[in-house]
C-alpha cells in the first residue's frame, strides 16, 4: 500500500518537472509565472505523499497548508504588481 504511494510520488516528480519547460522557454513573462504557479500547486500533493511515507502526515499537512497560502499570496502579489503598468506610469508622471 505504501509502496503504491511511493510509485505515485515518483511519477509525480516527473509530472512536476514537465512545466519547467514552460518556465524556461516561455515566450512571454506570464507564461513563466503560470508555469511556476503550476509547479507550486503540484508540489502540495508531493508534500502530502512524503508525509504518508514518513508516517508523520499530521505535521506535513500543516506544511502543505502554509505552502498553499504562500503560493496564493505570491501569485496575487505578482499579479497585482504586473497589472496596468501604463496606468501606474501615468499616475507617477502626473
Amino acid at each position, binding site marked *: 500500500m505504501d509502496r503504491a504511494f511511493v510509485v505515485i510520488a515518483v511519477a509525480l516528480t516527473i509530472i512536476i518537472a514537465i512545466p519547467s519547460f514552460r518556465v524556461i522557454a516561455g515566450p512571454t513573462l*506570464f507564461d513563466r509565472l503560470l508555469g511556476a504557479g503550476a509547479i507550486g500547486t*503540484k508540489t502540495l*500533493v508531493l508534500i502530502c505523499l512524503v508525509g504518508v511515507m514518513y508516517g508523520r502526515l499530521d505535521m506535513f*499537512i500543516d506544511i502543505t497548508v502554509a505552502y498553499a497560502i504562500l503560493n496564493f499570496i505570491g*501569485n*496575487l502579489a505578482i499579479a497585482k504588481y504586473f497589472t496596468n503598468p*501604463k496606468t501606474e506610469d501615468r499616475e507617477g508622471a502626473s
Partner: protein
Amino acid sequence: MTVFQVVSLVLVSAGAFFLLVGSLGIVRLPDFYSRTHATGKSDTLGLMLALLGLAVHEGLGINSAKLLVAIVFVALTNPVGTHALTRAAYQSGLRPWFKGGPVPEDPTERNTEAEAGIDVPGEGER
C-alpha cells in the same frame, strides 16, 4: 487490502492523472490564455482528488479534517490566483491567439507569440 485502501488508491491515481493532463496542457497549448485552462481547472481537480484520496486513507480523525480544510482552501484560491494572473496579462496588453492570423477586429496589429510581450505598443487598449 481493505475497501478504503482501494478507494484511496483509485482517488490518488485519478488525481495524478489530472495533474499529468494539466502539465501536458501547459506545455502543449498554443497561447497563454488557453494555458490558463490547464492550470486553473485540471490542476485544481487533480489536487482535490489526490488530497481526498489521502483523507480516505487516513480515516476519520484530525488528519482528514485538516486535509478537508486544505481541499477547501485550494479549491477557493487556485482559480482565483489564475484569474488574477490572467487579468494582469489582459490589462497589460497581451493579445489572445487566433487560429490562422491576426486579431479580426484589428488586422493591422501583428499577433505572433514572440511579439506579444507585456510592452506591446498599442494606444487604445482598455
